[in-house]
């Protein structure tokens, strides 16, 4: 058993692909049309784990996603080497942060909006 793919729900797959590649810097891995949607995954240039950008078409998923967002709860966390650098880089690209970098126990975290209905946490280990 291995962790190979994890997923995140997005309100628009095309918009999500642009954000996760052009803005965050991930790379598109798979893009298969499946009916009205796509099997769409991205990978970090630094690792093989895939992140599926899955449509939030199911009302149950949408309700969950909206509630998590409204409560300010991130649905995924990405590790970075230098959070201050990433914060400045992404802010310059127009990314909205709800939390600027701050120490939280053994990590420094920041939280951003992926513009697709999710809050994403960036963390830098101490």
């Amino acid at each position: 058993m291995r962790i190979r793919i994890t997923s995140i729900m997005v309100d628009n797959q095309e918009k999500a692909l642009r954000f996760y590649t052009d803005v965050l810097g991930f790379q598109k891995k798979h893009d298969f049309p499946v009916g009205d949607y796509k099997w769409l995954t991205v990978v970090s240039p630094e690792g093989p784990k895939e992140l599926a950008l899955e449509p939030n078409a199911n009302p149950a998923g949408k309700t969950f996603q909206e509630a998590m967002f409204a409560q300010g709860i991130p649905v995924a966390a990405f590790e970075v080497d230098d959070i201050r650098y990433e914060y400045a880089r992404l802010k310059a690209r127009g990314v909205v942060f709800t939390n600027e970098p701050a120490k939280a126990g053994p990590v420094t975290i920041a939280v951003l909006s992926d513009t697709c209905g999710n809050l994403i946490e960036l963390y830098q280990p101490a």
Partner: protein
Amino acid sequence: MIVTRETFRRLCRARDLLVEIPEERLSIAEIAQKIDVSPFHFIRQFQSLFGVTPHQYRIRSRLDRAKLLLATGEHSVTDVCMEVGFSSLGSFSDLFTRRIGTSPSAYQHQARVSVQVPGTLPQKLFPGCLSLMGCLPPTAFRNFREARLTTAR
């Protein structure tokens, strides 16, 4: 841009208001007023946070709701049109067809024929978590295996 906790809360409140379909629909300017932000800043901040303008968000929400109502098969196209806040069947059908790629009645028919169990939503139109994986061609899984083998080397 950094949004404060209060601005974030207000924008989430605005998002809820955009989705609501009351008798008297609030305009974008009225929603901005309700959350104590100028219309200009409301539109700019909303778009930065949610990736679409308030108007686009409202339209998308109404069409998503329409898709759901059509798929459950308990409403006529006219009922759905009214239920999601359109007053003209023609403009609803036209917008739905342009955005979704099929007319409301064709969408309803498509949903009906793909429902396996009465009362459930068609998986094809309303996929659950990671369920799209089951619809991939065999080559996709070969790609996964090849990627794993490449990584293992």
